């Protein structure tokens, strides 16, 4: 179902990968100008918006009937991660001051981006559910929260591993770190809340409300490094990152994007099946059980 939308998303992803990654690879290693005359700002916009639009379309178009699509997306994600890891570990030079330690950036930064994207998808799904009452969006919300929580947990672990050799400490109550921990535990709490509510409609409604409120922390995480003095550095941008570092960063970003989308699609399918099972009438007792009951 909804084949055209699926292929539209794939076309957007292809454009994003072309302008976000292949142009940079051509520029850095093939001495070829693949930019098709597009200025760097336009290329970045295509990569950024194309990638995000593709995720949204894939989730809207997914009616949980097709298993091969999320599988294919997940495999593509692993391929991108392998490419990114190869460039990140063996091709890109070490950073001038941090040396080899800086390579953690190639997983840490994409993980951060998509942890926040997953929470944003959960927020959007919560709004759509509350507006229309369609439980498919409750399934997508639960899936996005769960994937977002896993990414946020990985984010904190990677951050600690990077912080020890760079800052000298595993953890500190810096605004960025604290708000990220709050994000992790708030959404973990929503997953726990869902386990305590038996009525599917109430469960969906309450966890959607909680998701909208917990989502307040996402912009706070983003702005924490601008609003407060912090140990964590501010956001980098292409001007503050040398070009040889762009390729592993972007390849891994596409890898995590695809993996995240695949996992959300698969996890939403599980949620939808569970709900179907919950609402199905109990199976009739067979004769043996009836005999025992009597």
């Amino acid at each position, binding site marked *: 179902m909804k084949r055209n939308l699926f292929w539209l998303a794939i076309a957007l992803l292809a454009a994003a990968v072309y302008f976000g990654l292949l142009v940079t690879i051509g520029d850095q290693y093939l001495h070829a100008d693949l930019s098709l005359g597009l200025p760097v700002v336009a290329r970045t916009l295509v990569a950024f918006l194309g990638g995000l639009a593709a995720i949204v379309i894939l989730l809207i178009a997914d009616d949980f009937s097709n298993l091969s699509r999320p599988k294919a997306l997940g495999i593509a994600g692993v391929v991108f991660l392998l490419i990114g890891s190869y460039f990140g570990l063996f091709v*890109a*030079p*070490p*950073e*001038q*001051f*941090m*040396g080899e330690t800086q390579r953690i*950036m190639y997983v840490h930064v994409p993980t951060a981006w998509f942890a926040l994207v997953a929470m944003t998808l959960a927020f959007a799904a919560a*709004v759509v*559910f*509350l*507006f*229309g*009452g*369609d*439980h*498919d969006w409750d399934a997508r919300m639960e899936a996005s929260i769960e994937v977002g929580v896993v990414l946020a947990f990985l984010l904190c672990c990677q951050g600690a591993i990077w912080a020890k*050799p*760079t*800052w*000298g*400490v595993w953890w*500190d*109550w*810096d*605004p960025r770190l604290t708000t990220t921990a709050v994000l992790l535990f708030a959404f973990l709490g929503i997953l726990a809340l869902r386990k305590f509510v038996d009525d*599917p*409609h109430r469960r969906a*409604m309450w966890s*959607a*409300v909680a998701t*909208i*409120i917990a*989502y*307040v922390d996402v*912009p*706070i995480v983003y*702005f924490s490094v601008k*609003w*407060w*003095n*912090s*140990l*964590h*550095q*501010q*956001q*980098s*941008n292409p001007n*503050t*990152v*040398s*070009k*040889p*570092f762009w390729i592993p960063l972007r390849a891994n970003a596409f890898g995590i994007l695809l993996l995240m989308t695949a996992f959300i699609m698969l996890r939403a399918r599980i949620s939808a099946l569970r*709900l*179907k099972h919950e*609402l*199905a009438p109990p199976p009739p007792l067979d004769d043996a059980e009836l005999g025992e009951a009597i």
Partner: protein
Amino acid sequence: MDTKPTASAQSRRKTRLFMIGAFLVAATAFVVISAGGINKNLVYYWTPTDLHAAGDKAYGATIRLGGMVAPKSVRGRTGTSGLEFDVKDATGIVHVKSSGVPPQMFRENIGVVVEGTMTRSGYFQCNRLMVSHNNEYRAPKSGHKMSKDELQKLMRTTEGLKD
């Protein structure tokens, strides 16, 4: 699909009311945090200027001081305790004595956050030294992969901690 609960018009109106309520709570929380007093009351570290401005409040309590390591102010050997240096910002400077081992990244002109107490003798006694990195990531100047020896040499020359 047929077993999905179908929301009646009444329950749909109810969920929409919940949505509006959730948005109100979320928006209020966001405005309070971003524009309200929390911004000023929640301070991760003081700059040297803040510390001087605080006067008597700076003494005795455990505080964090953040700024840049002033050039040519580092005394004491790398990797040992008994390190001394100055932390400065645009307008202030504070002398720091540290008892811990500094992180590898520690050098002149790098951001630091030190935790400890301001003493009456006019220096900051630090018992936790953290180095902060800025948002710049640069390849070594040649643009090619460096050998280990080259990298170590570069690290040594940029640390500013020669004996």
